[in-house]
């Protein structure tokens, strides 16, 4: 329970107070992530295995169709490529698609007590991360079976580091969309359309050679999924370190997202509660 509260700075709690609040409610955040996962796979016999089966089967079908269209050399290499693209795309889009409703769905909690918004904003990317980790394990197993796993080396340290990099990207993304989603209910529909369009210019199934070709340079710079996919696939699938270009692009995107998230959070403050 609340020990002491002073609402003098109701709209702009000092950062330290905010962190203390987050610390007090960390159990709630983590348990709600667990609740989301359990709810998603509850009453299904295969449970969380669906986190692997679903994108894998989708990848198998899509790789077949697009493999024919693009005339790829190896169906299985392409399947692994598409599978890796899908699970990362799911992580990325969940942060936005589920993010828009993060605060709206938390109304019941937020109107009963002074719980920091960030608890519900973190719930989304953390949940997406767990699903992603499950799927990533499936990807590694598939690569081992197909004998496509790259030689072991220091670059593999970048595989867990990527999770941190992805969270650093997705957390502010969810914060931004949760605020916009609560404030402007139309956002949900706009993002659905925008993400559908982005999908077709993202290296989910588009070959990385195509993305990296000189005439695609603009796409590489404006589509945040490009550096993310590069940083994910590089160490895990090709035995490469992160490229300087990817790291710079990721850094710029993260800086822009965090800045926007902080500005939005501070300018709206707890006033968002009136829009719920």
């Amino acid at each position, binding site marked *: *329970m*609340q*020990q*002491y*509260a*002073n*609402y*003098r700075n*109701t*709209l702009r709690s000092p950062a330290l107070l905010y962190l203390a609040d987050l610390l*007090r*409610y960390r*159990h*709630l955040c983590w*348990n*709600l992530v667990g*609740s989301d996962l*359990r*709810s998603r796979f*509850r009453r299904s016999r295969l449970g969380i295995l669906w986190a692997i089966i679903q994108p894998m089967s989708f990848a198998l079908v899509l790789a077949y169709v697009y493999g024919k269209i693009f005339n790829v050399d190896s169906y299985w290499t392409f399947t692994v490529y598409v599978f890796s693209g899908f699970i990362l795309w799911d992580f990325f889009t969940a942060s936005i698609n589920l993010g828009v409703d993060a605060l709206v769905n938390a*109304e*019941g*909690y*937020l*109107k*009963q*007590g*002074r*719980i920091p918004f960030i608890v519900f904003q973190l719930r989304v990317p953390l949940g997406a991360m767990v699903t992603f980790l499950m799927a990533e394990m499936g990807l590694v197993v598939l690569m081992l079976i197909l004998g496509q796993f790259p030689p072991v080396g220091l670059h593999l340290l970048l595989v867990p580091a990527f999770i941190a990099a992805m969270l650093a990207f997705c957390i502010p993304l969810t914060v931004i969309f949760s605020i916009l989603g*609560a*404030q*402007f*209910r*139309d*956002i949900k529909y*706009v993002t659905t359309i925008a993400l559908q369009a982005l999908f077709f210019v993202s290296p989910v199934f588009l070959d990385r050679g195509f993305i990296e070709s000189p005439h695609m340079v603009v796409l590489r710079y404006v589509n945040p999924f490009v550096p993310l996919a590069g940083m994910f696939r590089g160490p895990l699938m090709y035995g490469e370190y992160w490229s300087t270009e990817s790291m710079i692009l990721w850094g710029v995107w993260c800086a822009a997202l965090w800045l926007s998230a902080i500005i939005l959070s501070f300018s709206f*403050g*707890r*006033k968002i*509660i*009136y*829009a719920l």
Partner: protein
Amino acid sequence: MSAEALRVVASDDEPVQSTGLVRREVRDCAIDVNNATIRYPIGPYVRGSIKANLMRLMGARGEKVGKVEYVNALTDISFKVTKGERVGIIGSNGSGKSTLLRAMAGIYPIATGSIALSGELGTLLEVGLGFEAESTGRENIYYRGMAMGISPRRLREAEQAIVDFADLGAFIDLPMRTYSTGMWVRLGFAVSTHFSPDVLLIDEVFGAGDAAFAQRALARMKEIVQHAGIVVIVTHDLYLVRSLCTRALWLDRGKIIADGPADYVANRYENRVASRPEAVE
């Protein structure tokens, strides 16, 4: 918990029976509301229209673009509550009673002024909300408890007592989407009232399940109200105010009309209702 039941809480002089409430020493507590004003946005802000905002970006003016408008839900409210006080907040519908209570709980941000509160805070606002429908009742005990800022360790200790109090039988291990509305309220009430706070904020009275449960809820309510350091209750029931509260605040259109001994304020309010029934419901 019906209004009638709460009246019994207020009037009954019998010694309080323990209902399993986790009691502890009440610490120093206080509420200090100082010139608090709440501006409640109405219109496009609440509806959240992108169109209105885009139009404004493009330089459109006038009513069509839906300018954000505000009403003052509370204007310049100041009062202090000290340990031991039982405060009733009365007033007509839309006078700002619930808004004030939520501002005191830190839920609604204030535009100007300040609200300071010390002591452990407990609220009984919409207890039937804020559950995960796909999770079981037992799991939701933890979520609700953690949302109150209670550690998982304390919740593990309290789990069985809460389950017993809610008395939902086998339903406690079923997803809450299978529950009836009454069952949601029962579980919410059981968790929300299990831990005795220093400062207790109660919004209106609420229905809490069948007759058998109402009896238990009544006893629990009695215990928690008697044990809390400060109780602030928003209600339309003047009998409750007179019998339970030591002090009353009368709000009208977001302003304090009267603040004083419960009987005195309740009488004044009642006289106003009698003389101008159209102005005050």
